[in-house]
C-alpha cells in the first residue's frame, strides 16, 4: 500500500455520510491482506488530522458513534448563506426515499436500499425524520433489530391527503405516465431554459458550448 493511512482515513471520514468509528476505519483495511492497522495507529492519524485542521474552517469531532468532520462555528455565518441565496430543494434521493416509505411502509432502511439499488444516506433519513414526515414505527425481529419507517399524519396533512389510499396505485402511475409525457416536458423546458440563461453568465462554463459545436462540426454531411 503506497497511500498513507492518514490520507485514506481523512478521505473516508469526509465522504462518509455518518460518523465512522475506529472499528469501521480499521475495517477499511481488512481486505488488503496482512494485518490491519492497530487502533493506536488510527488514533495517531486522527490526532494528526485534528492538528492539521487547527487553523482551518473545519474540525474533527468525536460523537457517540465515531468521528466526523464538520464546519467550524466560526465560518457558519458565511456557510449559511449557501441556503439563503437560493431556495432549498430536496434531492432526488430524498424524494425517492420518501416515496418508497409512503408506498411500502413499514419498511427498513435496508429494504429501501434494495429497492433503490443504492445506499440511502443517513442525512436523508435524518432530514425526513426532522421534518416529521416519517417516523420509526417499530423494529423487525431479525438480527440487528432494524427500525421500520412509516409516514406520519404530518406527511398526509402536508400533501393534503386524507389517507394513503388516495395515492395512485402503481398501475395508475404507469398509465398517468403515457398520457402525461408531453405535459411533463413543457414546464421543465421553461424552467431549465431560464436557468441556463442565468448560468451562461458564468464565464467558467463557456467551454461547454464550444465543445458542442466542435463536435457537431465533425459530422460529415454525407
Amino acid at each position: 500500500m503506497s497511500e498513507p493511512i492518514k490520507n485514506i482515513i481523512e478521505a473516508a471520514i469526509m465522504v462518509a455520510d455518518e460518523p465512522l468509528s475506529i472499528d469501521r476505519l480499521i475495517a477499511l483495511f481488512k481486505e488488503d491482506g496482512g494485518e490491519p492497522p492497530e487502533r493506536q495507529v488510527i488514533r495517531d492519524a486522527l490526532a494528526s488530522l485534528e492538528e492539521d485542521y487547527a487553523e482551518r474552517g473545519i474540525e474533527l469531532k468525536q460523537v457517540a458513534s465515531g468521528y466526523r468532520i464538520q464546519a467550524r462555528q466560526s465560518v457558519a455565518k458565511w456557510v449559511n448563506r449557501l441556503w439563503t441565496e437560493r431556495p432549498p430543494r430536496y434531492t432526488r434521493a430524498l424524494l425517492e426515499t420518501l416515496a418508497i416509505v409512503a408506498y411500502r411502509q413499514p419498511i427498513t432502511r435496508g429494504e429501501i436500499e434494495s429497492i433503490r439499488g443504492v445506499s440511502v444516506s443517513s442525512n436523508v433519513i435524518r432530514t425526513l425524520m426532522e421534518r416529521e414526515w416519517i417516523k420509526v414505527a417499530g423494529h423487525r425481529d431479525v438480527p440487528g433489530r432494524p427500525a421500520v419507517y412509516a409516514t406520519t399524519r404530518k406527511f398526509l396533512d402536508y400533501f393534503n391527503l386524507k389517507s394513503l389510499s388516495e395515492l395512485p396505485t402503481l398501475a395508475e402511475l404507469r398509465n398517468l405516465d403515457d398520457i402525461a409525457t408531453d405535459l411533463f416536458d413543457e414546464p421543465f423546458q421553461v424552467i431549465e431554459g431560464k436557468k441556463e440563461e442565468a448560468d451562461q453568465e458564468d464565464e467558467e462554463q463557456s467551454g461547454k458550448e464550444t465543445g458542442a459545436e466542435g463536435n457537431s462540426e465533425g459530422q460529415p454531411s454525407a
Partner: protein
Amino acid sequence: MNKEVTPSIETDSPAEPNPRPVQAEMPFAIVQGQPITTPPKDLYIPPEALEVFLEAFEGPLDLLLYLIKKQNLDILDIPIARITNQYMTYIEMMTEMKFELAAEYLVMAAMLAEIKSRMLLPRPQEMEEEEEDPRAELVRRLQEYERYKKAAEEIDELPRLEREIRTVVVDFPWKNQDRPEPEVSLDAILKAFRDVMTRVELYTSHQIEREPLSVRERMSIVLELIKSDEFIEFSRLFKPEEGRAGVVVSLLAILELMKETLIEMVQNEPGGAIYLRAAA
C-alpha cells in the same frame, strides 16, 4: 453464390475479439435464470435462445454490426449477400416461431433485400460511375451507429458519481433555524416513485408485488397501536364500523406484519383469546 451460408453451418468465423470490459459486467442475456455474459461464440443460436439473443440487440443495426464484427469483416467491405442471408435467417426463424419482432427488423430486412436485388441487376458501365453504390447508405448508417455505440461504452467507463467518485460532504451543525423548509409537490413524490419503479423493473428480475396501499397504511397504524411491553387483544384491532372491507384490510395488515416479523401473536389455550405484541 457458390456456398449457401446459414448461421448454423458457419464454422470459419474468426475468434471473438476481446469484449469491452464494460459489457462484460452487464449480463448479455438471461437464459433460464443463468446470466450469459458473452455473446455466443459462433453464429449458431439454439432456437430456444433466439428470442433472448435478439433481445440483447439494440435493433437491426446492432444485430448487423454483430454479424459483421463476428466474422471480423470491415464495415466498408461487407459482403452484402452473405450478411443479408444471415440476417434473413434470424428474421425468418423468428417469424416462424411467431415471436413478436420489432418492426425495425423487418424494415431492415426489406432494405437489405432491395440492396441485394439492385446489386444483381446488370448496369451499363457509364451508369455505374454516376449511380451511388447501394450499400453506401447502409454502410453510412452502420458506421454512424457504431461510433455512438462505442461512445456510449466509453461514457459508461468514465469515472462517475455513485461509483468511482465520492464527493466530500462534511457536517454543518450550525444551520440557521429560520431557514425555510423546501417545498415539495405531491407530483414530485409520485414522479420519484414512478422513476424508482421503472428502474426496479429495468434492473432487477424480481417484480415488486402489488399490494393495495390501504394494507400498507393499516400495517403502520396497527404497528403504532401495538407496544412491545404489553399485549393487545387481537379483536381490539378491528373496528366493526369499518365494515367487511375494513376488517379484511386489518386482517391482511396483521398477517403481513407477522410475516415481516414485526409483531408476534400469542394464544395461551386452544380457542382462547389471541394477543399481539410488537416483536421483542
